[in-house]
């Protein structure tokens, strides 16, 4: 047990901190061009694709170094890089399953954000049960023709390309009839409609595919291998968020404490109220436990261990904590917590929600409802933990693929 950074990692952290202090844009990045310029600066500094193999333009940096960079960005509230799905999911998928021609064509432009990517997986009737997806890709010889609807697609409005799962063999068992494709989003058969969420904002979209074309050369792996590819994709971007997420929670907590000093009730600061203090104490203790747990995960990743199903414990734990935290924060702030505009100066701090957007308490509170649904709902995580970590018997399900 030694939770201190080594002298080398400490030096790396200090250098990283200095770089962000000197280079983080002071103005909000409004246009895509501004954001590309910032991304390019991050790329040139070696902060993009840190976990990727060197031969594909990465750094092969340790999980800890990746976490240090993400944490320093969270600390200074730096704007995020572009193309997170391209870098975290599409690139590693191509490195593992792609042809040489695909790697040559796509990888570098993913890292430089010259081409932006989205992931076309979920469908209106295929959420937790993703393998029941119905979007069809019909083989037309030189190309495939894709028809169907995707939903909950992040970055779809910006994306040039999408990583697509579609059914190529309706007769096969449901997990075996799916193929994986790279689809050009800039074509007439692809229509993106931003989805307005309960936050009032549109981080996600619906994507309608009507006879959209995918060249045969953009099939990833073999026909029917799509489900396997989606399940086995290795992510090189590991540990990146473990600490940064907690750092964002901690910043929000300190803003909350500041608000309880500024707001008064009966002429006394809220901070003097024992009930408020009890709530703050509970949030702080849980927040610190999240930090310790993140360090433990990071340490395991850094030693080359793959968390596997244990990652479900982490995801379940922090996403449920985030809801409790923001529910409690809004209770403390009373009528002010739910305001989406016109907040008093003392409360006007920008709270960076786990979406990465800096907004109000109300936005962060609403956004926290997403975390226990996306990327495997809490109920799915509990199934995974029960079956694959604790070894409890599987539930009888008609669609199980026999191994």
């Amino acid at each position: 047990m030694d939770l201190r950074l080594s002298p080398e990692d400490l030096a790396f952290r200090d250098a990283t901190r200095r770089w962000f202090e000197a280079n983080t844009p002071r103005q909000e990045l409004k246009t895509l061009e501004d954001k590309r310029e910032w991304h390019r600066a991050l790329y040139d500094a070696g902060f993009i694709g840190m976990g990727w193999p060197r031969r594909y333009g990465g750094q092969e940096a340790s999980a800890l170094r990746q976490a240090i960079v993400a944490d320093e960005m969270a600390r200074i509230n730096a704007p995020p890089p572009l193309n997170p799905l391209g870098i975290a999911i599409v690139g590693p998928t191509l490195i593992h399953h792609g042809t040489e021609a695909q790697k040559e064509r796509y990888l570098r432009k993913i890292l430089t954000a010259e081409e932006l990517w989205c992931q076309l997986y979920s469908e209106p009737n295929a959420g937790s049960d993703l393998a029941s997806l119905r979007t069809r890709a019909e083989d037309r010889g030189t190309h495939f023709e894709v028809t169907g609807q995707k939903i909950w697609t992040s970055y779809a409005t910006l994306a040039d390309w999408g990583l697509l799962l579609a059914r190529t063999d309706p007769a096969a068992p449901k997990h075996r009839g799916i193929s994986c494709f790279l689809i050009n989003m800039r074509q007439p058969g692809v229509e993106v409609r931003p989805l307005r969420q309960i936050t009032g904002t549109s981080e996600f979209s619906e994507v309608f595919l009507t006879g959209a074309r995918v060249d045969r050369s953009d099939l990833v792996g073999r026909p029917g291998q799509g489900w396997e590819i989606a399940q086995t994709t290795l992510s090189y971007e590991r540990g990146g968020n473990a600490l940064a997420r907690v750092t964002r929670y901690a910043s929000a907590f300190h803003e909350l404490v500041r608000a309880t000093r500024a707001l008064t009730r009966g002429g006394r600061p809220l901070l003097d109220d024992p009930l408020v203090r009890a709530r703050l104490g509970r949030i702080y203790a849980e927040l610190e436990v999240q930090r310790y747990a993140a360090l433990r995960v990071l340490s395991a990743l850094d030693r080359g261990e793959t968390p596997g199903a244990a990652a479900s414990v982490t995801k379940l734990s922090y996403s449920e904590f985030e809801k409790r935290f923001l529910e409690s924060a809004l209770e403390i702030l009373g009528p002010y917590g739910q305001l989406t505009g016109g907040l008093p100066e003392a409360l006007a701090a920008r709270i960076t929600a786990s979406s990465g957007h800096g907004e109000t308490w109300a936005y962060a509170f609403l956004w926290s409802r997403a975390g226990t649904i996306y990327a495997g709902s809490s109920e799915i995580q509990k199934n995974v933990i029960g079956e694959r970590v604790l070894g409890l018997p599987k539930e009888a399900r008609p669609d199980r693929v026999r191994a």
Partner: protein
Amino acid sequence: MRFAFSDDQVLLRQSARAFLDEHCKSEVVRALWEDPRGESEALWKDMAALGWLGLALPEGHGGSGLGMVETAILLEEMGRVAYPGPYRDTVLAALALAEAGTEAQRRRWLPAVATGGARATIAFVDAEPTWDPEATGTRAEPAGGGWRLSGVKAVVPWAHVADFILVPARAPEGLTLFLVEPSRPGLAQSVLAGMDLGTRWVSLRLDGVAVGPEAVVGEPGAAAPVLDRALARGAVAASAEMLGAARRSLDMSVAYAKVREQFGQPIGAFQAVRHKCAEMLVDVENAHAATYYAAWALDAGAEDADRAPSVAKAFVSEAARRVCGEAIQVHGGIGFTWEYDLHLFFKRAKALEVMYGDADWHRERLVRRVAGG
């Protein structure tokens, strides 16, 4: 950065588990529950021979000079078997003496503790039910060259078997810690029954107990920081033991859910049960992270060493209560019987939940440190 046990620490855990599985089986624990003294001299001597009693004591005084991480490893294993006895409280008292005692006190008592020849405890709680040293009402009135101690120490763990008791009292100089041997005239004890019979509580009445200057641990008026650190170690120690009780309860629940059948299938196949077990695992893993982070922070003198033990105690107190309680729920009727072992862990967790500051107290302590007021 490494959040994992060293090879030596893994070995320590394995040997502790092997020893306790053999020598502290549930039959042994249950026999000690019925025993008026509540602990086993044989077990104590074995633990001394294994080096457990001197584990964290200074090498110059018969100890091994290891830290809270190793102590927590042992205590987690003890929680796993609901070990009954004064191990934890003896270690806490000895560490306070090692840190703040005079050289004469250290020479007299530490080697004795390390070799199994002395047991000890700290009398944190007065008549008011709080572990806060600032609430101490017991008085130390100057008399001759020394003091006379008067007051009530309501719930002192294992005082009936202790060879010395560390007693905080208010002297004219301020809060002072006294080393009191229970044979002193004016000290009356009555043993109290708690739901966890593996933890014995004693009520002490001090009626003008005369002590000399040699009984002062450190300097008069200097007890507050000593007690603060003793409480921090107590918080980590209790967290480790609660973690052990919780992990054992989870293990038993998972094993049971695999074999107990209802409606023609193992109950673990039902999501209602499986999800409960998954939630228990999240609590146990987080309790592990909290406990060992705090133990490391104390050993390393980390900048958050004054907060991490409170984080651990605040979190693990509730997590262990949830896990040990849900274990009974997963088991159903059998979990509610005296003959089944689950209640040993449920009750141990409950006893530890209130010791060395409960969750509310530690949360308030955290808010004072991070937000002031």
